[in-house]
């Protein structure tokens, strides 16, 4: 099979801008149902994003970004992300992410009945996604 045929269009749009537009051979990200990797000719599917690392494999390398919320429409020859919050590694403030991680961990550890555990967990996942993207 020719090299060209493995590629599909990837588009990431946020409320403020078109974050990414290009062709890739594979994308990987985290969904509410678990991690998912998408190749060309995937069955049509709409999934909800969970905070995590988004990996876009292009011909000439791999791009990574931290995606926090949104949903994805997967079609055979295109994948469209509607991301509410997404960042490239160079847009992330590492110290802030570390601080957020510690804060969230503390909240979860302390088990104060007043804290919203689900929210703290999401905050932790967001912070982890940011840190992982920088480290990757």
């Amino acid at each position, binding site marked *: 099979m020719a090299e060209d045929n493995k590629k599909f269009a990837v588009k990431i*749009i*946020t*409320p*403020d*801008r*078109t974050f990414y537009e290009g062709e890739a051979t594979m994308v990987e990200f985290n*969904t*509410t*149902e678990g991690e998912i990797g998408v190749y060309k000719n995937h*069955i*049509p*599917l*709409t*999934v*909800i994003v969970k905070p995590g690392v988004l990996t876009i494999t292009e011909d000439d390398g791999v791009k990574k970004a931290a995606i926090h*919320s*949104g*949903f994805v*429409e997967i*079609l*055979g020859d295109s994948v*469209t992300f*509607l991301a*509410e*919050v997404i960042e490239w590694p160079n847009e992330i403030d590492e110290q802030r992410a570390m601080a957020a991680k510690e804060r969230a961990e503390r909240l979860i550890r302390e088990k104060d009945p007043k804290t919203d555990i689900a929210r703290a967990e999401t905050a932790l996942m967001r912070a982890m996604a940011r840190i992982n993207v920088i480290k990757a």
Partner: protein
Amino acid sequence: MASMRDIKRRKSSIQSTGQITKAMKLVSTVKLQRSKQAAQNSKGYFDYMYKTVQSMLAKAGNIDHPYVNTSECKKKAVIMITGNRGLAGGYNSNVVKLITRGNLPKEDLILYTLGHKGREAMHRYGYELAEDYSTMIDAPEYIDAMRLSSVLLNAYRNGEIGEIYLAYTRFKNTVVHEPVLMKLLPVEKGEETDVVETNAGNVPMNFEPAEDEALDMIIPKYVTSIIYGAMIESVASENGARMQAMDNATTNAEEMIEKLTLQYNRARQGSITQELTEIIAGSQAQN
């Protein structure tokens, strides 16, 4: 005829007003460019969001879900987006009129206002007001829309409100802005049949998680994105409206100055003629 001094005073006052309106026009032109760009950048996101939600609803059929079902609660929440400042032609009053002259009964409404101007007007008319979110409209951020939508969705889920409407000014182009009132929740299926077909190219779409769960997660995002879209479109409309209003004001000021200059010159000539006549009459009397 007014005296020369009066005319002169009037002229200079109009001149300085004209200078102000001219400066305001320039400022809002620049602001308009910026907010227009922002509105264009985000248009793709909202169109896609709308399409996806509509195709989900079409697929889900007659689904039994609180976001789709009509609620028994009669209270209707209206998010009303106006400006914080006046001098923008009919921009603020058009949105106000949209609600006061609309067919939504006043006693059922509860208003979530963005923009001091709209809030003040609705307060005068005696409408029930919820919290004020006016600061958001100065520089709308997506996170603001998230905050507002979570407040509204909570109230909706708790049964405090049965319907959510959005009143804002749609930005068609630089000169045409149209106040609109749209229903956010419960979600109504629009004229989606053709939209859906073009969307996925007639491919049956799968959802993971299943439709009703996915709706649970996507509808809040849908509401947020529509509120955000309305915010930035309103800002663009406000700047557009102000630019037009100030342009008209400047033209009017120039016209008035022209008329006054004519009057002033006439008065000046009149007084010279009179003085001359007096001098001549005086010198003749001496001879």
